[in-house]
């Protein structure tokens, strides 16, 4: 069996730790991957020092996209927004602990894209990624 479906990912997919929405929130963003229909929304709360106090995701999609969103939202609690902006593709892959082909990489990175778009504003994100 591919280690794509190792226990951690299936466990996160079936029993997510940070699934839900936050009301009120300081940032929220939602996006989808039209190719496969993965859809993720992430809500974030920060304190006066711009440190994340809570983060939650909602949406639907494949095990990779949902497990990545769960791991990511859990991991950013306690980080400053500047630290969130520094997160990269490699951080996500490290959290998942797997190698991914180009198609599945899009699934894995959707939540990072959504989180950064929420924190940066989408225009700034596109400029940053360009």
């Amino acid at each position, binding site marked *: *069996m*591919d280690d794509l479906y190792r226990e951690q990912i299936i466990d996160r997919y079936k029993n997510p730790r940070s699934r839900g929405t936050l009301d009120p929130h300081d940032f929220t963003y939602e996006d989808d991957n039209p190719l*496969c*229909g993965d859809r993720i929304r992430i809500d974030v709360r920060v304190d006066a020092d711009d440190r994340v106090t809570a983060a939650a995701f909602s949406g639907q999609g494949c*095990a990779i996209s949902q497990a990545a969103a769960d791991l990511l939202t859990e991991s950013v609690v306690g980080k400053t927004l500047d630290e969130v902006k520094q997160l990269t593709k490699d951080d996500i892959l490290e959290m998942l602990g797997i190698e991914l082909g180009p198609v*599945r990489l899009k*699934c894995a990175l959707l939540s990072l894209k959504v989180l950064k778009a929420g924190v940066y504003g989408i225009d700034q994100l596109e400029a940053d990624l360009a």
Partner: protein
Amino acid sequence: MHSPPAPALLDVDRLRAEFPVLERETRPGVPLIYLDSAATSQKPRAVLEAMTAFYEHQNANIHRGIHRLAEEATGAYESARRRVAAFIGTPDPAEIVFTRNATESINLVASTWGRTKLRAGDLIVLTEMEHHANLVPWQMLAAERGLRLAHIPIDANGRLDAEAYRELLSRGPRLVAFTAMSNVLGTITPAAEMTAQAHAAGALVLLDAAQSIPHLATDVRALGADFVVFSAHKMCGPTGIGVLYARRELLESMPPYQGGGDMIRRVSLHAFTPNDVPYKFEAGTPAIAEAIGLGAAVDFLDAIGMQEVQAHEAAITEYALDRLSEVPGLQVFGPPAAERGGLASFSMADAHPHDVAQILDSLGVAVRAGHHCAMPIHEVLGVPATTRASFYLYTTPGEIDRLIDGLYKVKHVFA
């Protein structure tokens, strides 16, 4: 409980030996189970050898050279056109235009016939289950020319709503463009009947036969269709070549598509006279080796017999639907086996199509996951994506069994 299809209609083992790729493993000890023929079929040795032989012995440009190779290359290219014509039931090879693929064939019709014959406010009727290739060219033309588009809805079983179609025809459309076989639902549409109805209402018909021609005996004259489009690569042929069939008088009434060499009779610095059909639609050096490959594919299918191909796939499809129905939580979309071609799109409770396809891949089973270039029909079905297993003349009941084993594995992982 599940008996594999009874009498062997095709000698599938012998046929499979003609497809080199079917001998490979996807990883050590894991043989390939190729269930993605609706995306592209595998290629028999005869097609590969015909193309290689052309490059090794006859390679030359066509229609211009005086030398021996040029004459042989031209002869081989035009022979392929005649065999394709015969394969789909027209005695006139000039009605066969070689394009890049079915998509380009539709764009050709939209760009030439559509731009010159349609006026603002004209109506084009499509269906909800069209491939993007038969939606987007018309959307582009509609935006450019102020045309209206309307779509025949499908019912819960994936059949076109006949009453809605009659109502749309009463609005006087200029063109009805629809699939002969849905690439998502497998639905075989009543193309001859729909064509007759469209003609009675004064509309022309474009038939997207990309999914049907590889699998069903096709007679364009009996269908009465005005335009029929398909791609070689889904019918044992190479990529890079497709066909537009159109009635000769339509082709003659249409302006050229692209400008360049071969599509002209005469050129001056400021003007040109177009060539005769079909050459006026084939600007530039065409895909010569690919046309020859398509000719070999047609010969290969003819030698087997399309009735036999059809009967084999019908038996495989019935077996597949029967076995899929035993998997708990699995939903197959589309009509019953008797009304569909050789494919099944489905969803599984708790497992996204990407995950299904990935786990199947680990067992060597190649399926397609996603929207299959038909996002609107997925919206109608209410699912963002499906998993699709599709079959061809080389598919065996044993391969269906491997698919089902894989789906149980998916259930186990996600249980």
